[in-house]
């Protein structure tokens, strides 16, 4: 099986794979996680606000994102983002948006729905008495949320949020469908150029596997660490 296995093609393309591809993948993962958590927290606050004007749109958004395939959403945003840009900047024609910006918007908006559900569970895990106590001390809603509820909710949910980040990291490979050069995209380009599909795809699988396994191992350690303190 490995008789005509060409390790050299992997070594030759390492700089391209990691410098171009993996940088894109990791940067997209990090920024989309950040944006997704911020937007997701806002959505969670909307869903828990109790005002129909806020809960209904937030719930509709989250349920929409959760019921369609991510691939379809990537296509949607790929064509939609230029028009959104045009609408936001009042420019007369659809905006030119780079691949990275387009992917970042897509991932942030899509993953926000999943981070919203995690943060919602986190906020609901805080006992009602704490909110009541904070309000009795005269704190306003923003103060209660930012000083009492959200820090604890966030802390309780850190392992789940990080696990979702690993899912997001794996999902970034789907930008392949709009021909963006992320890690898999880079591997695929080398594979097709050199006719070395076996080597490149096996290597890509190995890299994704090692990173995801190490990350989930780290999350497991963190989970245990947090559990002891509490």
């Amino acid at each position: 099986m490995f008789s005509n296995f060409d390790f050299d093609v992997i070594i030759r393309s390492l700089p391209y794979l990691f410098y171009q591809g993996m940088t894109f993948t990791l940067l997209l993962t990090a920024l989309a996680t950040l944006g997704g958590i911020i937007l997701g927290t806002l959505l969670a606050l909307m869903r828990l606000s109790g005002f129909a004007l806020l809960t209904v749109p937030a719930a509709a958004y989250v349920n929409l994102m959760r019921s369609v395939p991510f691939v379809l959403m990537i296509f949607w945003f790929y064509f939609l983002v230029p028009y959104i840009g045009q609408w936001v900047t009042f420019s007369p024609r659809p905006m030119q948006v780079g691949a990275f910006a387009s992917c970042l918007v897509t991932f942030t908006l899509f993953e926000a729905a999943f981070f919203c559900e995690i943060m919602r569970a986190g906020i609901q895990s805080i006992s009602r008495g704490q909110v009541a106590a904070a309000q009795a001390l005269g704190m306003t809603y923003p103060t209660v949320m930012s000083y009492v509820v959200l820090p604890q909710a966030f802390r309780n949910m850190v392992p789940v949020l990080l696990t979702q980040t690993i899912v997001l990291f794996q999902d970034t490979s789907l930008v392949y469908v709009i021909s963006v050069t992320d890690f898999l995209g880079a591997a695929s380009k080398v594979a097709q150029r050199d006719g070395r599909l076996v080597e490149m795809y096996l290597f890509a699988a190995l890299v994704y596997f090692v990173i995801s396994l190490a990350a989930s191992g780290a999350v497991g350690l963190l989970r245990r660490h947090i559990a002891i303190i509490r």
Partner: protein
Amino acid sequence: MNYHWNWAIFWEISPDGVHTYLQTLLMGTGWTLLTAVCAFTIALTFGSLIGVIRTTPFSFAVRIGDAYVELFRNIPLLVQMFLWYFVLPEVVPRTFEIWLKQLPNASFYTAVVALGLYMSARIAEQVRAGVLSLPRGQRQAGLALGLTLPQTYLYVLLPMAYRIIMPPLTSELLNTIKNSAVALTIGLMELTARARAMQEFSFQVFEAFTAATVIYIAINIAVTFAMRLVERRIAVPGYLGTKARPAGH
């Protein structure tokens, strides 16, 4: 916005010369559902097997089960599809390779196997959680009554476990349907691929994707509703309803 809406596009003939665009989308829906159902059958079979193995007292078997789950969970689905589709035929013996490459509908079978095994790791987690959620006494009581270990699983543990994990299994079924869209990368003409093809030929981007989105939502609602009925019928009395949770996508 200088985009020209044309909702009548669905009744126009698609480039295949026979079907309207609407019909091509519906054909795609058929492939999506067929792929998802076949893949979920594989996922349920292998997932149950691995999930059960991971709760047995045999540490070696447990370790193999753990490795299986880690393997399929830590590689992106898209990469797994590529491995099955592009790599497998190259690394198997010559006769098998020829058979694989001449297989009609190869992308469908590949999608079913890849998606089925990918989802089986998640189902294994659910089955394991279900079995472990039962009181230890149930297993001990079964064994004390003289049932063998397989009998204990078959008649005592699994009937309870499956009823408890019904809501998460519903989520996994929905995830299987959604994840089948990844198979468009290996050429399966399922719903998302049809919408993409329609967009390419007709330039009516938003109509095509709106239609696909609506169909996915309709499938989602129908499956959720059907499973709610099943869940209510088989819910274990006395257990709090564990609500369906999104396990990811």
